[in-house]
């Protein structure tokens, strides 16, 4: 039977190795520090409560799957909250736009270059499932079979989905390049 000390050490090692990946993915997905920290904390608390998955590859898939699901849940709650605020504003006659997106200073800028900045914006305009596929494949460097383990699909299926997501992203990027730059662009 593993001692408590070994369990503690193993968990600390997992946090040290995978913490950046989980936090980084949540931050790219949510673009909000506080939300990303909340999601990251919840992921590792759940990992601790379940005593984790022993296989290394399975562990990465589990971590990213749970992170993704929590991010999606958070976005849905955020959108539902915004809709309620918007409905309340309509009832009370508050000015429109009061329930708009978070202010720019709250949005995390994660681009080290102008090209990456455009990529960030375009990613946010994509459906969450497609966004995550592209982040997993291009940013995390996961192979199609590894992504398949996360979402429960074959590698060949993932390859097709990534291809379609890439096509959509290119259309969004091309459209942005064709538009004149506007101040206060929606994130």
């Amino acid at each position, binding site marked *: 039977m593993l001692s408590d000390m070994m369990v503690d050490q193993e968990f600390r090692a997992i*946090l040290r190795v995978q913490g*950046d990946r989980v*936090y*980084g993915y949540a931050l790219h997905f949510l673009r909000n520090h506080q939300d990303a*920290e909340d999601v*990251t*904390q919840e992921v590792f608390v759940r990992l601790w409560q379940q*005593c984790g998955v022993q296989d290394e590859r399975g562990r990465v898939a589990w971590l990213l799957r749970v992170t993704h699901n929590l991010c999606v849940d958070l976005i849905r709650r955020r959108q539902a909250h915004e809709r309620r605020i918007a409905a309340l504003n309509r009832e009370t006659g508050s000015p429109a736009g009061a329930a708009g997106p978070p202010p720019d200073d709250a949005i995390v800028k994660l*681009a080290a270059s102008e090209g990456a900045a455009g990529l*960030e914006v375009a990613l946010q305009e994509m459906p969450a499932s497609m966004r995550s596929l592209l982040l997993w494949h291009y940013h995390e460097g996961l192979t199609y079979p590894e992504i398949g383990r996360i979402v429960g699909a074959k590698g060949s299926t993932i390859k097709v989905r990534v291809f379609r997501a890439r096509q959509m992203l290119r259309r969004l990027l091309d459209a942005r390049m064709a538009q004149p730059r506007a101040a206060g662009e929606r994130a």
Partner: protein
Amino acid sequence: MMTACEDLAVLLEEYLDGSATPAQARRVEEHLDVCPSCRSEIESEERLRHAFSALERPPLPCELAERILAKTVGTAPRAAAPRLLRSLPVGARRARSGRPLAGLAAAAAVAVLALGVWLGPRLVERASARWSPPAPTRSTLAEGSSETAGCAEIARLQARAGLTLAARIVLRTETTTLVGVLGRDIPRAVSSSIQKTARSSEGGEG
């Protein structure tokens, strides 16, 4: 019938990853030399990959790591008991050859024997605290065997309690382990062996 572009689109990713074979890479490069459309496609793909690589990789904040550890390490993890079994490869858990089970059974047996050796005398101490040797009588003193008989009886009880306890634990551990791993597919020889052990342990002679 697939066009050359469609045919090579399949190889595009491998070519960009550097995982295409030399022959495949040569085919792609020869096609790119004559097809501006595919050349544009591959350049676009390279720009996309470069943009993704330029996205920052923020490290886990130290304060967040400390908060996570405060909520986890030091608190009792749930389901700690099955952790040993979970760490076995799936194949070993399902093995019918019994060889992977031998290691598990051996470890369990060692643990049980150690427990029996440690616990047996303590159980007997409790029992012997209630048992007091008969007051020496003239006849027993004359025989000079009352203390010796008492010590022998304690030793006998000690040995019997330890063996009985160890046997019961082995039986229960074996059964639970094998049923948990093999389900209903316990080989007949194994279940017979368990039953024989049970009979002899329950009726063990002192």
